[in-house]
């Protein structure tokens, strides 16, 4: 068994909204992360999938301390095998650990400052975190630029001169330069074209192999998730509803929501037009979640029990977790492994 690198324990995040019933009414709590717990092992890729508004980005940001969680712990296992609660750290210690955990954002057009040259963007984390000589910084930047496939002669240019794929490479180089152990990729390839997407996914995989980086890969695209991850967590309305290895999750899903998500993905194969499960209705409002299981208004298998009682996330097989009362009984459809003859 590989070493754990991060334990997320009972993480909650609440936001306050103005009550809609009265102008001066009491603020209302909206729970966007509800009791999130999972562990993360060194060198693996854990993907977090779900529809917009399910809290996947909030979870990623809470882990890197971009926003502060309401309660819960994020235990980080340092290289010296110490266990520290990353969320409680302050000052110097926090700064030191921040080097180990980095983030890549979705939109490479807004995540890079237009007033900084590519060299400045990539070297900024080094300048902020380490006391290095100019020549050392130069070497490191050149090294990382080469590894991420950037032409070193372009380093003096500004972001506007680069295409989307190139900008995402710059963002990856900046995240990598402090030699992090964990990178949170928030929809890192969603804004890119298909042919460029494949380049960036391959780059992320290569870098993982080379440096043994752990990824938390946040995405809404199940085809990419299946390609890149070792394990997958499916989120729905602030909760994890299923967590399993990629093969188990896609081969035999145990939560109806996972099944519906997979079935909704349009397949690039005109012959494979299987009967699809089309969910009725929309994602419920997290400010006013349904009773019982939050998925029950859209679930085709619901019973009275689902309306009244919220299911716990429980282990139902070998490290396969699902939050459904009927996880064992339902015979849900996964994705058949077909070696497609296309292309």
């Amino acid at each position, binding site marked *: 068994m590989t070493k754990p690198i991060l334990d997320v324990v009972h993480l909650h995040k609440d936001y306050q909204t103005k009550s809609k019933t009265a102008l001066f009414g009491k603020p209302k709590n909206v729970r966007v992360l509800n009791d999130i717990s999972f562990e993360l092992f060194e060198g693996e890729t854990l993907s977090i999938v779900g*529809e*917009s508004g399910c809290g996947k980005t909030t979870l990623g940001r809470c882990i890197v301390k971009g926003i502060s969680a309401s309660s819960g712990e994020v235990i980080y296992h340092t290289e010296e095998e110490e266990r520290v609660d990353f969320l409680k750290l302050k000052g110097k210690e926090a700064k030191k650990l921040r080097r180990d955990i980095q983030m890549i954002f979705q939109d490479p057009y807004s995540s890079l400052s237009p007033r900084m040259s590519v060299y400045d963007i990539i070297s900024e984390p080094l300048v902020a975190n380490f006391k290095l000589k100019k020549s050392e910084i130069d070497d490191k930047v050149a090294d990382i630029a080469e590894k991420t496939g950037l032409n070193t002669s372009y380093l003096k240019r500004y972001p506007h001169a680069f*295409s*989307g*794929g*190139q900008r995402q490479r710059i963002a990856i180089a900046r995240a990598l330069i402090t030699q992090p152990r964990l990178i949170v990729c928030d929809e890192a390839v969603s804004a890119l*074209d*298909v*042919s*460029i*997407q*494949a*380049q960036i*996914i*391959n780059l992320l*995989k290569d870098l993982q192999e080379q440096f043994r980086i752990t990824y938390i890969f946040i995405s*809404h*695209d*199940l*085809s*990419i998730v*299946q*390609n890149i991850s070792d394990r997958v967590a499916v989120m729905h309305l602030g909760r994890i509803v299923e967590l399993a290895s*990629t*093969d188990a999750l*896609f081969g035999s899903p145990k939560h109806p929501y996972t099944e*519906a*998500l*997979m*079935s*909704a*993905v*349009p*397949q*690039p*194969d*005109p*012959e*494979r*037009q299987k009967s*699809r499960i*089309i*969910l009725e209705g*929309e*994602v419920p409002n997290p400010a006013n979640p349904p009773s019982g299981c939050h998925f029950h208004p859209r679930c085709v298998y619901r019973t009275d029990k689902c309306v009244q009682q919220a299911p716990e996330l429980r282990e139902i097989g070998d490290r396969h977790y699902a939050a459904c009362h009927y996880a064992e009984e339902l015979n849900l459809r996964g*994705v*058949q*492994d*077909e*070696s*497609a*003859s*296309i*292309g």
Partner: protein
Amino acid sequence: MTTQAIRTEQPLLSVKDLKIRIQMDNGEMKAVDGVDFEIKKGKTLGLVGESGCGKSLTSRALLGINPKECETSGAVLYRSATDQPSEQLNLLSLDPNGKQIRSIRGRKISMIFQEPMTAFSPMYTIGNQIMEAILIHRTKNKKEAKRIALDMLGKVGISDQEKRFDQYPHEFSGGMRQRAMISMALSCNPELLIADEPTTALDVTIQAQVLELMRSLQADFGMAILLVTHDLGIIAQMCDEVAVMYLGKIVEQAPVKELFYNPKHPYTKGLLRSMPRLGGNKSKRLESIEGSVPMPINMPPMCGFYDRCKDRIEGVCNVRDVPKTQISEDHSVRCFLYSDPHGGESQ
């Protein structure tokens, strides 16, 4: 062949040698460079390509709603299938602000846009905006217009229409707004619906609903659809015919099955291979197309895909424009690998 048979053979809309030029500070950009295609009555044509390939400009040119900077040439020949007798019109030659094109926009050819958030005016109710098109094109009676609008809202699966009719766009979710936009586009029973990335801003589950809706409405109303998207999955599910665009040109065009199972152009092949797919082999590395799309500014006559192509032939692909080659009756490709070695248009 009887005259009747010839009439049904005629396409609803045919685009001939469409070119769109934009003057930039550093030269002329050939955003769309000689595009030809036909849309048949009741069929779906998919226009697929990466960002910047000119697919949106092409679709907007059909209605003459591109910005003034776009110099458009070529012909968009439209012949109404319902008007008797019908005359063929070149939509490009019509005054973009004139009466004639305005009687076609929204009535015969309507459009749905990618961003349901920005396509509606926030100042008017949804019902008011749907009624607007009906009042212009179908009836002058407000009561009747409202009845048609409510009916349309019901058809696109919006429940509680009476209440929804008087709500503002911000009270609708993304999926609902897209449904409302579809109901607006279909309210005058158009012959052609242009859908520019209609589901890109939506979640997969909602996307599945909207695509299903479009398909069932097409069956009901019998309209043709021009579907512009970058998603090959959507193409595979929705289209009868596909045109693949790259750098302002259609590089390959074929019926959907032919394109997916027998792709010819190296770009089409690369696109199909670089797509991660569900149920695919996980450990397998994705094949990517190296490099990125060049800017089509001051391009010399050559194949636009040359720099990224694995099968390029130096001295052939980079010295002249690639002609269109007809591989079979309905499959055409723009690539020297398949063209007549003596050059020239081999149609």
